């Protein structure tokens, strides 16, 4: 019986050592963090056709707590309650640039930034779309997501622009946010 116990102990140690050799078995976790967009904000094709948000993740506690042990971005979503105040059915898109930029036209944004997300669709005047995680997750674009991941793993500073896709639009966004699931050490 003593021999069996020794064998059990030996096997357990070998198994744990093999798993620890992967370098991450025990030492990583998926941590929830979110950056709040201005609440509310409005985009209107005639007067303020886009919303520019300079994102600094260093203002997010969960990010700063894990920044030195950050290993990647497990998942991401953009959420919010989109209300079409006035206009035809259309969509909302989010574009991204690394670092802080300040484009002042929609054309400047779509020429120089990279599409990150969208379009999140919304019906005609009066329609409301409360974007869910699942709906949001499938709207990400690979190129924009790559920039986002690099920025999250880098200095945490980037700029997003939210624009409408219909020719004429007036959309209000309530409780908008960027939700991050960080792959972090523990």
């Amino acid at each position, binding site marked *: 019986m003593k021999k069996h116990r020794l*064998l059990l102990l030996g096997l357990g140690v070998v198994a744990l050592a*093999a798993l620890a050799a992967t370098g*991450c*078995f025990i030492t990583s*976790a998926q941590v929830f963090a979110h950056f709040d967009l201005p609440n509310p904000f409005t985009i209107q094709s005639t007067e303020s056709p886009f919303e520019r948000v300079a994102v600094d993740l260093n203002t997010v506690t969960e990010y700063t707590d894990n920044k030195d042990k950050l290993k*990647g971005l497990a998942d991401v979503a953009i959420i919010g309650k989109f209300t079409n105040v006035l206009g035809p059915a259309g969509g909302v898109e989010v574009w991204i640039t690394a670092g802080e930029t300040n484009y002042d036209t929609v054309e400047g944004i779509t020429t120089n930034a990279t599409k990150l997300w969208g379009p999140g669709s919304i019906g005609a005047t009066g329609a409301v779309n409360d974007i869910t995680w699942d709906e949001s*997750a*499938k709207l990400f674009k690979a190129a924009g997501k790559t920039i986002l991941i690099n920025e999250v793993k880098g200095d945490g500073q980037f700029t997003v622009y939210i624009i409408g896709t219909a020719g004429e639009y007036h959309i209000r966004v309530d409780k908008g946010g960027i939700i991050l699931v960080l792959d972090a050490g*523990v």
Partner: protein
Amino acid sequence: MRRIGISVMLVLALAAGTASAGGVGIGLFGGTSIPIVQDDNGSGTVFGVRAPVRLIPLVTVEPYFSKTAGGDKEQDFEGTPITYGGIDVTGYGVNVLLTFGGKFQLYPYAGIGTFKLKREGLDESRTGYNFGLGLGLSPLPKISFHVRGELAAAVSDETSRKWASVTAGVSYNFISFPVP
């Protein structure tokens, strides 16, 4: 190093001194799966099939296939609940069991395989590692019941997702033969 050598010799000595039945079986199992430090994934159910093959005393090799349905996870955002869809995991691989006992068995085990993780916006395959401890009871010659506790990790580069699981299952040994 010396301890490892002693352990290996003990295994060989036990194997040489043991006359037991080998065999090939098939088993079904199911249970619960609990994510470990995953803020975006909830507890779910796991079920699957195993095919234990015992060719030499003490050691059982066991190919397996499993499916885990992750549970939804809710987080609060600005007072609004956000629901993350659970991560479904399809896994296949092989376990190696060190089996002690006769009608009542105790077996530590470890395995390696491929885990496919899937939910909206996530679709990737990872290398899977698992280890655990099982208890088996064989009230009839060809039938055995099993309870297992296991830790598993789906590894990608420097990160991993981890689960603990508790399962119960039944196996039918459809081929039996003596082994030295």
